[in-house]
């Protein structure tokens, strides 16, 4: 900006501040910047911190924060791809040398990371754009959008980037246009001859994540505002613990197959919404079952009480092989490429609705419903109808016509299982292909002899990816065998689900702000829901955390798996047992795929403002610096899709550490800190700018684990913060040490790094902790009085407790930061 730029004066209390230099280029957004400062900055703050806002940011605008993260947690790449084929000079094998353009193997990995995040972003931008365009066509661009009566500050992932949550569909379009504009910029940076710094490439991958959370939040908002999805911010605080009620029927056994069944799959709920509307208009609700696979299923139970949520998308093969859908309606994202091929095996009729999944068909949107139905009745199996209203109507009419022409069961008989099992040559090609190491020749041999026990277990554990079937040289239909080996499990897969509730409300944040200093942690479990080994892993984690008084939020397709657990004594699910608040010892479900934006970054941004008046409008770096100092952890369980990759990047950018499960081993990079490198663990004193050494926490920002046990043990460890009340640290020590002892048989070897004083030790463990500090770490302890006499600093010095607390970590209540810019100082540019 030129020197002749006019001053833009914001008035905060009695202080006037020139904010013309608060943004990279203020021209055209003077009012926005002024309003942002006047409404969210305190007078105290504008006097002490240089105001810096990043409205409608490019990645580089938030680079100060990204650099901090990437320097403390340098990317660890998996180097599984070593050959670049991006340009005409390639392919270039980068192992041991540079590519023709100068590309190194490390930079190549960073480019792949950015490309992955961009793909994830693109997919959801498309979903959001499709929905918005439909809304504008249907309701007009002047239609006001509502936030819900208790969502006081609007949408935080949106506010954090563009200052304001839109109020009309036109403003939503403007907001989305910003997000869409970021994608080509980010993708271009990952192209040949562009960005060459690993830090900058990863910073852009983070940005793709932030923009994705932004777009997901817009999508969630449109769902509520235009289609009356369940939305907690429209309820009073007293209603939320039981909202929405956990009464939705879910699971494969929840469908009444004596009725015609329409199964919806994908990420676009519009055709399902239209089908339900048509059913309601024609009083067909009792005559037809509608069910959803994956995200659309999670959406359907938010607007239609009778909808059935079946299963996550990758396990869709179960639904197809069972022949469950008389009519299957496919939309965009999370559909299998071979969905049509699979569905045709059981004579289902298929309607595909998305421009991105056309299966080589001509669009029938302009044809009459009768013409389309006529063709489908004559023998056409698949049609493309891009008009959701017409697709919904065709689905409802068609399903009533085809129901009686299909078989009542497509399961193999016991004899057929034995016959196929007898073909097994015990080559174990299935075992080698199975990502979860579940099936093997010896299991089939047992089946041939009539013992289906092991096969029955696979029914639950398998993600039904079908790799075993493809690998089998004898073409044994293994997925059909797994299903048929345990038909009872299909009937018993019937449970009550709490539908998604949308955003966390401002009232809940006010509530949790009080308990924040004693609460061990807030955990958000997100992901796509198919993972190797078992269908119970997510429920096991949610149960453990909520019983340990953590605040637990679930979202994405994994939310359904939480509902699969029932307490043996009460027969109640976790959702039926725990209140649906954002509070300790509560469990709430935000919703399907796009709701992954609502459970972690958004509430903590809001907490930053409500509890500490930390400005949030266009202040991502400032808020992330705040969130980083608090105890939030995200667990991403399920496949490492590009959307998951970008969602995770967005949460890391918000300052929240992420644990990824076994399928996350396909991520291209992790962000791991090194607890042994003391130079990495510091914070700045907010008043002096002095750098002080801290505990190594959160030790990692993105770490893969192999098992549920590891995830459970890591959550309290990553939740340690350098500033917390004694009671909070007592809780975390209790969780951390118990988790290790219970799951690995011993305490971890690094707990002493988090000890500052004996009052932070849980009473039941204090004596042992003090003894071990004395015997193994060289501390001086008065065991009789249970006191630390001298603590051993990591540099080897023995310090009296008062000095130690002063020199290691920071006291609760002190203002600390990671960014030089945010250190308090008297500003010189006050007017």
């Amino acid at each position, binding site marked *: 900006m030129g020197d002749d730029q006019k001053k833009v004066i914001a008035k905060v209390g009695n202080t006037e501040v020139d904010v013309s230099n608060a943004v990279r280029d203020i021209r055209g957004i003077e009012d926005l910047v002024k309003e942002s400062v006047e409404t969210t900055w305190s007078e105290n703050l504008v006097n002490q911190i240089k105001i810096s806002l990043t409205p409608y940011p490019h990645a580089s605008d938030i680079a100060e924060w990204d650099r901090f993260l990437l320097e403390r947690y340098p990317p660890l790449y998996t180097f599984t791809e070593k050959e670049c084929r991006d340009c005409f000079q390639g392919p270039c094998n980068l192992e041991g040398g540079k590519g023709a353009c100068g590309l190194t193997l490390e930079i190549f990995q960073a480019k792949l990371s950015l490309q992955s995040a961009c793909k994830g972003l693109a997919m959801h931008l498309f979903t959001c754009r499709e929905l918005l365009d439909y809304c504008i066509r249907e309701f007009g661009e002047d239609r006001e959008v509502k936030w819900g009566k208790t969502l006081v500050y609007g949408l935080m992932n949106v506010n954090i980037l563009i200052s304001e949550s839109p109020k009309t569909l036109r403003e939503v379009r403007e907001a989305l246009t910003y997000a869409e504009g970021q994608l080509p910029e980010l993708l271009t940076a990952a192209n040949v001859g562009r960005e060459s710094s690993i830090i900058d490439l990863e910073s852009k991958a983070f940005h793709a994540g932030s923009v994705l959370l932004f777009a997901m939040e817009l999508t969630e908002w449109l769902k509520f505002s235009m289609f009356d999805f369940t939305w907690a911010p429209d309820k009073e605080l007293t209603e939320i613990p039981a909202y929405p009620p956990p009464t939705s029927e879910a699971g494969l056994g929840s469908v009444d197959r004596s009725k015609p069944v329409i199964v919806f799959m994908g990420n676009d709920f519009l055709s399902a919404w239209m089908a339900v509307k048509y059913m309601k208009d024609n009083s067909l609700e009792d005559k037809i079952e509608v069910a959803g696979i994956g995200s659309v299923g999670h959406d359907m139970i938010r607007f239609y009480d009778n909808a059935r949520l079946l299963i996550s998308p990758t396990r869709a093969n179960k639904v197809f092989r069972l022949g469950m859908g008389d009519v299957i309606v496919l939309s965009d994202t999370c559909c299998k490429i071979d969905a049509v091929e699979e569905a045709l095996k059981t004579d289902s009729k298929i309607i595909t609705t998305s421009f991105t999944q056309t299966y080589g068909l001509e669009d029938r949107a302009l044809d009459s419903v009768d013409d389309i139905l006529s063709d489908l009745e004559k023998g056409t199996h698949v049609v493309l109808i891009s008009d959701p209203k017409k697709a919904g109507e065709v689905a409802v009419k068609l399903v009533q016509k085809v129901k009686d022409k299909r078989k009542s069961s497509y399961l193999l008989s016991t004899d057929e299982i034995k016959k196929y099992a007898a073909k097994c040559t015990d080559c174990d090609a299935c075992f080698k292909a199975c990502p979860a*190491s579940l099936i093997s020749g010896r299991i089939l041999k047992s089946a041939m002899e009539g013992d289906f026990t092991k096969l029955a277990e696979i029914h639950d554990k398998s993600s039904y990816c079908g790799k075993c079937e493809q690998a089998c040289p004898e073409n044994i239909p293994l997925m059909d065998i797994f299903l048929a080996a345990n038909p009872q499990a299909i009937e018993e897969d019937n449970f009550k689900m709490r539908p998604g509730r949308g955003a966390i409300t401002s009232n809940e944040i006010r509530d949790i702000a009080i308990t924040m200093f004693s609460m061990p942690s807030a955990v958000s479990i997100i992901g796509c829901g198919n993972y190797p080994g078992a269908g119970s892993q997510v429920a096991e984690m949610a149960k453990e955390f909520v019983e340990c008084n953590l605040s637990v939020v679930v979202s994405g397709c994994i939310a359904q798996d939480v509902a699969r657990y029932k307490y043996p004594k009460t027969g109640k699910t976790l959702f039926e047992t725990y209140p649906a608040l954002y509070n300790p010892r509560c469990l709430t479900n935000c919703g399907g795929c796009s709701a992954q934006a609502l459970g972690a970054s958004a509430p903590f941004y809001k907490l930053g403002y409500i509890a500490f008046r930390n400005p949030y409008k266009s202040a991502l770096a400032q808020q992330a610096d705040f969130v980083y100092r608090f105890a939030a952890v995200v667990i991403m369980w399920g496949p490492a899709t590009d959307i998951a990759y970008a969602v995770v990047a967005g949460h890391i950018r918000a300052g929240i550490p992420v644990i990824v499960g076994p399928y996350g081993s396909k991520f291209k990079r992790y962000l791991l800190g090194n607890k042994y490198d003391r130079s990495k663990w510091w914070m700045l004193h907010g008043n002096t700018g002095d750098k002080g050494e801290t505990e190594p926490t959160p030790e990692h920002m993105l770490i893969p684990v192999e098992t549920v046990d590891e995830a459970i043990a890591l959550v309290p460890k990553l939740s340690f913060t350098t500033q917390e009340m004694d009671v909070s640290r007592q809780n975390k020590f209790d969780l951390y040490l118990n988790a290790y002892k219970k799951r690995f048989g011993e305490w971890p070897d690094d707990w002493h790094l988090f000890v500052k004083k004996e009052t932070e030790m849980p009473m039941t463990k204090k004596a042992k902790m003090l003894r071990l500090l004395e015997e193994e770490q060289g501390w001086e302890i008065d065991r009789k009085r249970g006191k630390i006499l001298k603590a051993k600093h990591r540099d080897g010095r023995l310090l009296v407790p008062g000095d130690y607390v002063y020199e290691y970590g920071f006291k609760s209540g002190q203002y600390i930061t990671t960014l030089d810019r945010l250190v308090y100082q008297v500003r010189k540019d006050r007017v």
Partner: protein
Amino acid sequence: MILAPDETAKLIKEEKRRLLVAGSICNDLEVGGKNLLDYVVDIAKLTDTPIVATGSTMFHLKDNKEIKAKKMMAADLVNFLRVEKWEEPITPERPELLVFLGYYPDIVKMLVSTIRDGKTMVLDNRYMNEATYSAPDMSFNEWAEYLDNVIDNLKK
């Protein structure tokens, strides 16, 4: 490089700075009537090699006084290997050969791929191209035979 059992045993014996890494499948799989973790323990005892127990395997090793074992996250292990200064107390010196057993293929592929400085050996029954040394693709029976042969060769 695909190794025969005798070559595997020879390499393990030759490399003084070695580390066994036992993954979560060790607890779950029986190979040739023997728990996979027992093979890890056998190798550790025969060669006096410490074990990094990842996943939940430590629970089954904690009471075994004949071996040196420590619970670690697999990601932590590979993370410590990328810095010059080795400070992880499981071994006094930076390990030069990491022998993996008991991992889902995707996980061990990820782990060995991150290691740029040091040799890796995977003894699971799926060939791992990303490792410096790997056992070949094998059926369960072949795998049991392979591991038994490795043990026999280590005894020599």
